[in-house]
């Protein structure tokens, strides 16, 4: 199955998912960009995204490997990746 519903989550001070967000949509692809303040807010955001059928979520480098691991365990049906640097 092609992945056509995607989200990127940025964790940074002062971000709120209800106000810091963008949506880029084409006939073939749907991408959401969401800012969150902390891990708990990311959890709530991904719950909404997974419920809406989002297939892939990428986390910014502000998330730790441990946080990404917790999210992957919480949402096994969603592909969750994290930006890392060598």
């Amino acid at each position, binding site marked *: 199955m092609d992945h056509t519903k995607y989200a990127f989550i940025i964790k940074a001070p002062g971000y709120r998912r209800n106000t810091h967000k963008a949506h880029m949509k084409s006939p073939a692809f749907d991408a959401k960009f969401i800012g969150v303040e902390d891990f708990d807010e990311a959890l709530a955001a991904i719950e909404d995204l997974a419920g809406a059928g989002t297939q892939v979520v990428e986390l910014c480098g502000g998330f730790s*490997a*441990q946080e990404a*691991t917790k999210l992957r*365990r919480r949402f*096994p049906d969603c592909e969750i990746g994290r930006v*890392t640097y060598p």
Partner: protein
Amino acid sequence: MRKQQLPERGTTMRRLEASKTYRILESGPIVMVCTNDGARSNIMTMGFHMMVQHAPPLIGCVVGPWDHSFTALRATGECVLAVPGADLARTVVDVGNCSGAEVDKFEHFGLATSKAAKVKAPLLSDCLYNIECVVHDDTLVDKYQLFILEAVAAWSNDSRKERRFLHHHGDGTFTADGERFDLRDRMTLWKQFQVDL
């Protein structure tokens, strides 16, 4: 398969600081991995592991989808690494040569268990050491089946007479620990890691 009876039952465990895990695993003993998927426990033998970090104590280990334990470890994020003595060599091999999908290994091999403190997987009472672990990082699981575990509790069974670890050389060949050299007086750089188990 022959049912085996393990010796020296009814022992008690001594709690260790999880930070001392490296003193148990750094020499690379064969370990047994206990998991619990919420319905039942399982156990497998595992030789591909290494210490990664002192604090928090992190352990890298390879458990793949070909292992029945993989699903439980991935889903629960918990396991126990049990370190057997050389007297359990045959049990170690036999446990690694059957699947938890087909047999209750604890019952089949007569393995005594104890309740863990921080995870749902059981401790193996007859092993020298038990290390309770949670999955710290699963980033490399899809690519290399490599779990990074964090030790959260550790136990020693001081009543076991056989204290030698088993080391797997592949394909069912093992050695037991040999002579131990105490060169701590020459370890001038890493004094903070000179702890007794």
